[in-house]
Each structure stands twice: as structure tokens, then as C-alpha cells.
């Protein structure tokens, strides 16, 4: 079991290292990384959160765009494994969130995670020297901690993510770290805006819109953020029926959405 994780890990590093050279697309890289986390670490969802420079953690990439899971990553503003991990700089590994005093420790996040069917909750710090720049958040349905090999693999994947974001060897100064983190967060906002534009144009949910966007980006070899810009400008012609070369993984299937409804007046 351990050997096969190591082999697959090595394969993943080769794959990811290839993407770090010419034509590097940060957003695509981070999304792929979260997907590899799900496969290699035997978890059900993975999310990468970055410090926004103002004291909060923000989600920049996740293995699934399902809104309810994304929200579970994002509600960890004041409490949750990610906040604890970020503040302490230590990994937070909770094998079973329904056991012990977790509900008292995280009165909002705990019940929300349980309601989503997650028992195992882990957060691994993303570090640059003494600084924690974000966290990798993992959710697992089955109650189980992270064994040693898996934890080691998780830390290795987190380091790869950090390098991807910061091009570590070139970073000497706080200014460069801050600006590169802001650039990553900016890219995410552009992608969210493009999701909205596509969702409305094609009358799909934002999660479905992301799949459309990503498939198109891969099929046309276009970086995600640049494509998002094109969508927003109206210069990308994306139809929902574009041929996909890869099937979405099961956890990527969008949740059911209500059809468009007529409104009855302004929300109050």
C-alpha cells in the first residue's frame, strides 16, 4: 500500500513538474493538484486556501466545484481546522469529527461538515520558511485519520503547491510573496466572475459553468485565467456542447439545480 502511494506520488510530481515550465497555468495547476490529492490521499474532497494578506483564508482551488462543498471550505473564517492550522502552523488531523469535543471546538464548522457527510477532516499548512501562506484542507467521508505515509505524501503535495505559487527560489522578499499571493487570489475572482457569465449565458449552474470552462481551456490549450478574461470580454465562444477529451470524475458531477424561475419581486 505504501509503495503504491509512493509510486503514484512520484508520477504525480513528474506530471506537475512538467507543468511548472513553459506555459505554466497556475489555476489549472492548482486544480489538478487538488484532484491528485483526492486520488493519492484517499480522501473525498480537497481544497487549497490562501491567506489573503488581510487576515482571512480564501479558497483558490478545490477538487470539486459543488457549491455546498466549496462553502464548507469557505466558512472557515473564524473557526475550523484550517484556521487552527494556519494560526499554529501545525497540521490538524481529525479522524472522526463526531467524536470528542469537536463540536465545542468548532460549533459552526463541525455540524456543517457532519451534515455534508464528512467524518475525517484534516488541514496541512502551506509553509514558506517561517511563514504559513495557506492550508490544504481535506475531507473524508469515512472516519479515519491520516496514516504516516499518507501524511507525508500530503506534506509533499503541499510543498509542490507552494512552489507553484511562489516559484520559491526566486522569492527573497516579503513584497514578492505578498504580490504573488494577491495575483493568485485575483485569478480566482476572475474565474468566479467568468463562471457567473457562462452560467447565465448557457442557463447552467456556476459549478457546471466551471466544468465547461475547464474543458474548453484544456481542449484549446488555453490558461484558465486568460480564458476567464476572454469569457468576461465576450471574446470566447464557448458552447456547452464542446467536445470534452476527458470525462469529469464522479465527484465533479454538478448537483441538481432548480430550473430558472420567474421572480416575484425584489428579495427582502
Amino acid at each position: 500500500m505504501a509503495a503504491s502511494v509512493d509510486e503514484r506520488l512520484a508520477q504525480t510530481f513528474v506530471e506537475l513538474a512538467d507543468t511548472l515550465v513553459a506555459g505554466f497555468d497556475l489555476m489549472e495547476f492548482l486544480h489538478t493538484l487538488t484532484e491528485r490529492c483526492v486520488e493519492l490521499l484517499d480522501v473525498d474532497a480537497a481544497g487549497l486556501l490562501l491567506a489573503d494578506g488581510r487576515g482571512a483564508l480564501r479558497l483558490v482551488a478545490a477538487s470539486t466545484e459543488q457549491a455546498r462543498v466549496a462553502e464548507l471550505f469557505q466558512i472557515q473564517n473564524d473557526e475550523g481546522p484550517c484556521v487552527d492550522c494556519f494560526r499554529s502552523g501545525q497540521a490538524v488531523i481529525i479522524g472522526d469529527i463526531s467524536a470528542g469535543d469537536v463540536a465545542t471546538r468548532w460549533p459552526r464548522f463541525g455540524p456543517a461538515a457532519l451534515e455534508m457527510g464528512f467524518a475525517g477532516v484534516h488541514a496541512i499548512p502551506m509553509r514558506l520558511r517561517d511563514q504559513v501562506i495557506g492550508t490544504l484542507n481535506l475531507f473524508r467521508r469515512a472516519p479515519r485519520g491520516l496514516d504516516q505515509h499518507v501524511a507525508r505524501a500530503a506534506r509533499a503535495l503541499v510543498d509542490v503547491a507552494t512552489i507553484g505559487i511562489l516559484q520559491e527560489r526566486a522569492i527573497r522578499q516579503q513584497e514578492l510573496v505578498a504580490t504573488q499571493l494577491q495575483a493568485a487570489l485575483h485569478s480566482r475572482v476572475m474565474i468566479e466572475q467568468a463562471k457567473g457569465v457562462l452560467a447565465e449565458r448557457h442557463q447552467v449552474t456556476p459549478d457546471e459553468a466551471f466544468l465547461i470552462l475547464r474543458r474548453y481551456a484544456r481542449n484549446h490549450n488555453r490558461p484558465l485565467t486568460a480564458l476567464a478574461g476572454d469569457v468576461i470580454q465576450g471574446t470566447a465562444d464557448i458552447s456547452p456542447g464542446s467536445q470534452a477529451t476527458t470525462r469529469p470524475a464522479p465527484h465533479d458531477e454538478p448537483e441538481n439545480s432548480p430550473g430558472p424561475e420567474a421572480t416575484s419581486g425584489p428579495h427582502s
Partner: protein
Amino acid sequence: MGERSVKVWAWIAAAHDGDAPVTIATLCRTAVLRLGVDGASVTAVSGLVAREPVFASDEVSARLEEFQFTTGEGPGADDFWFGSPMLIPELDSVTVRWPGFVSAAVEASARAVFSFPLQAGAIQVGVLSLYRARPGPLGAEELADALVFADIALQLLLDVSSGLVESPDYQPLDGVPGAQAEVHQATGMISVQLDVSLEEAFVRLRAHAFANGAALGDVAGDVVRRRLRFGPGSAPGSGR
């Protein structure tokens, strides 16, 4: 809204004349007071070319903005929109890149310059520029505070254009970054519903929330779940 945002907004609110709407001028003066810098200015940007100075706290700031505007050279100038601030603690480091800007800055006794794009994704409305006579980086706390000043400046610029700042209980903090992803998704959806720019869509979303006394995130959630739709011809403040 985070503690830091509340703190920075309190600084700005304390600095302005109680009855008048909060202005960019107040924001800039507060930034100078709190960030260990000597000057602050905001320039509004429309598209790639049109730039309009909004406020400069002092002569040096005004001159630096003017220089960048006329030459297109410098941290706040045209090729700036990479989604991150431009932090230059020592002007020497950019002499090769922006020779004209560096000599203009040195002549004006500015040795450190920090530029913050006022933007949310593809919505780009301006630049907040800070300078200091003494070289050296912004402190970590100052940098974090400056990012919040930029967030608030973005909201202020948008809300001035829509008239929201005139309202008595106006405060721009609802919807500063840290906002849910749904706010950005809703902005995209509304831009298609109304066939307007993202910036206009964002202004309309905010105006609707404000007019209805609703939290921006809640309204955005309704838009994303298609419980609320912005139709063409609807007036600002209404969702239909």
C-alpha cells in the same frame, strides 16, 4: 467583514466631517496618517487609456501620478493590471525598467513607492498609490492595512458613481474581498442579464442590496440560485 476592515473603516470614519459623505480624500489622508507613508493618491481608470486623478494628498503624489499618466511609465501605469500590488521599497531596483519615472521620483524626493490596483477580478477601476521619502518596505501590518484601504477605495469609487455614498448610513464594507464566491458569480450573471459591464453589474448588485437593507452575500445567493433576476430596463435598486 474582518477585524482589520472594521479597524481601517473606523479610522476613515473618524477622520471625516460627520455630515458629509466619506470621500476618497478622507481615505487618502487617513492612509498617510496610518501607513507610515508621506503621500497617497487615487487615480480612476476607465478601460486601458482613460485615467483621471481623483485625489492626491500632496504635491509630490500629484506629480508622481501626473508623470505616470503622461508617460505610461511607472508602477501605476498602463501595463499594471496583473492582479497584484506593485511594491517598490527601493527605487534603485526599477531604474532600468522605468528610468524616467525613477528620476522624476528622486527629484520629487520619493524613494519608495507602493501601488495597489483597485479591482475585483476583471473589474478594474483605479489605483491607490503611496509614496515615502525614506526608502524601505511597508511593515507587515501596514501592508495588510493598505490592502484594506485599497478594498475600501474600490468600493468608494464604485459607490460614488452610483450615488450610494450620499446615503446617511452608508458604509462600504459589505462585499470587500473575503466576500463569498457567489458575489462574483452573481456579478457575472447580472452582467449578462442586463447586458452591461461587470463593473456596472456589481454596482447594481450593491445598490439593490443597499436599497433592500439586505446583506450583499444574501442577494448574491438569490441571484445564483435564480430566485432573483435583474431584467433589462429595471431601475437601480430594484431587482426586476
